[in-house]
């Protein structure tokens, strides 16, 4: 700790300003001088640079994947690998027949509804896990265990219990997403700086008010991370459920199953690519900007 306290060269110096005149103005100027020196300088980057900075690396990655894929297909290794062009043709064909958009629509709708319900259950549940002792000791280990269960293991259970129905699909999505959201929220709340909570309590924010005014906003980045992960888990669980369950409204998972049944590698790869693209688009169009916004407001991520 540096300290001019050690310097004792005051003996011959000016006497203490016991009258106080000048001291106040001095300190006012000192204060604004220090503030100007210490406050960070922020120069925003121009928009096109920012877009390039953000979109550049993912675009490059896609190009690399396509090039390597095309190369392998041309070399014929493995022999069953269709070229990107063939897979694209498959997608175009499905679109012409009018199967493609409904399949994407059905899957997305299910995921949005399922995810919405999972968020509505998982977020408060996660908060309760940290606050209520019984839930913490009993329910949390159960949720953690369920979280590690693959969705594929849940599908037969759901189908036997509820039949080949939308209900079975939603059950699998909820069981996939809710534990993940709740557990992530709980650990985010556990990791909050105790000092902030102490400051809140010393200001009189206790109980429900403390949760609403301090805990929830403090843990907001954790909430968003939980939703992001919940979406991923839910989307995966949904694809598994659609792959195995035969529901009246076919989704992307059924498209995959169909390709599998027909032994068509290009249809299978077309479905896989679509599933991947939907997942990535939702992630980067919804969750990433949300997270970035929250973190930037707290000085935790560069704009």
């Amino acid at each position, binding site marked *: 700790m540096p300290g001019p306290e050690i310097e004792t060269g005051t003996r011959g110096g000016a006497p203490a300003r016991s009258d106080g005149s000048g001291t106040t103005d001095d300190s006012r100027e000192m204060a604004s001088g220090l503030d100007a020196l210490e406050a960070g300088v922020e120069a925003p980057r121009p928009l096109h640079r920012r877009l390039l900075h953000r979109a550049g690396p993912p675009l490059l990655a896609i190009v690399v994947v396509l090039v390597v894929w095309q190369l392998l297909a041309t070399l014929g290794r493995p022999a069953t690998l269709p070229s990107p062009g063939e897979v694209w043709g498959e997608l175009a064909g499905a679109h012409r027949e009018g199967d493609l958009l409904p399949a994407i629509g059905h899957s997305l709708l299910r995921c949005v509804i399922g995810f919405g319900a999972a968020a509505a259950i998982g977020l408060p549940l996660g908060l309760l896990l940290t606050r209520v002792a019984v839930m913490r000791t009993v329910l949390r280990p159960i949720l953690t265990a369920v979280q590690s269960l693959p969705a594929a293991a849940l599908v037969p259970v759901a189908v036997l219990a509820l039949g080949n129905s939308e209900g079975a699909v939603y059950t699998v999505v909820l069981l996939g997403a809710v534990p993940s959201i709740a557990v992530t929220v709980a650990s985010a709340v556990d990791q909050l700086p105790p000092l902030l909570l102490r400051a809140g309590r010393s200001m009189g924010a206790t109980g429900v008010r403390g949760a609403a005014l301090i805990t929830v906003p403090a843990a907001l980045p954790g909430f968003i991370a939980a939703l992001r992960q919940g979406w991923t888990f839910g989307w995966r669980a949904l694809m598994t459920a659609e792959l195995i369950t035969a529901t009246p409204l076919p989704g992307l998972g059924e498209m995959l199953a169909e390709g599998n049944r027909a032994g068509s590698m290009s249809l299978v790869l077309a479905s896989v690519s679509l599933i991947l693209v939907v997942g990535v688009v939702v992630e980067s169009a919804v969750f990433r900007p949300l997270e970035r916004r929250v973190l930037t407001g707290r*000085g935790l991520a560069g704009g």
Partner: protein
Amino acid sequence: MSTGLVAPTTASSTAQGAAPGTEPSGAVRLNGVSKVFGTGERAQLVLDSIDMDVAPGEFVCLLGASGCGKSTLLNLVAGLDRPTAGAVAVPSGRPALMFQDHALFPWLSAGRNIELALRLAGVPREERRDRAEELLELVRLPGAHRKRVHQLSGGMRQRVALARSLAQGSEVLLMDEPFAALDAITRDLLHEELSRVWRERRLTVLFVTHNVREAVRLGQRVVLLSSRPGRIAREWDVNLPFPRRIEDTGVSTLATEITGHLHEEIVRHART
């Protein structure tokens, strides 16, 4: 909230003998306060029969080496913890608390941090904005209302934290080494700001520090705590006129004397 802060402090400007506040009018009263952490064989006595009275408007510095239970004592006064024995009384209501870390809420702007404290203190919505501006003005940060916490320097953050503490409307301000993490120039400046705000607002301040000069620079009374368990070892009245500066001769003379006693307290632990 306020139950009557009547007497302006008389000890603030001129030499004065006995410690004020011996009759039961103290703004903070500690009566035989002890604190034990843990139970059974692992029980540890952290504070041992602390008796202390802080008069309304008085600035008292608690000084001690590590392990003297300074922070525990503040927690007890703040009502965040309960004493194992004895009684703590703060008649004016919940004191405001300020930490070494600014503890500002990073999801709120500087102004909103203050407004939150006002809200929790029951200030109606339409008054909050103006009151927050006033408080920022008081700590000399006009125009910082919309600034995010991470955009402020360390010294500015502590000034916002001070404003937020004042927003709680308490007459008693507890400070737990609030300037320990600041560089020397900024700390010097904040000493001046705090001293000014204390006199302007007639606050009662209980200020914990391990910096002897800081204690003498700021306090009207310096209380030295011994370590393990924390007991009141000695007290000094600081009869130096305000405003003071850290490099004042009087400050350094008394600081040297107190440092000697502090060292004695520490050396005692080397022998035992």
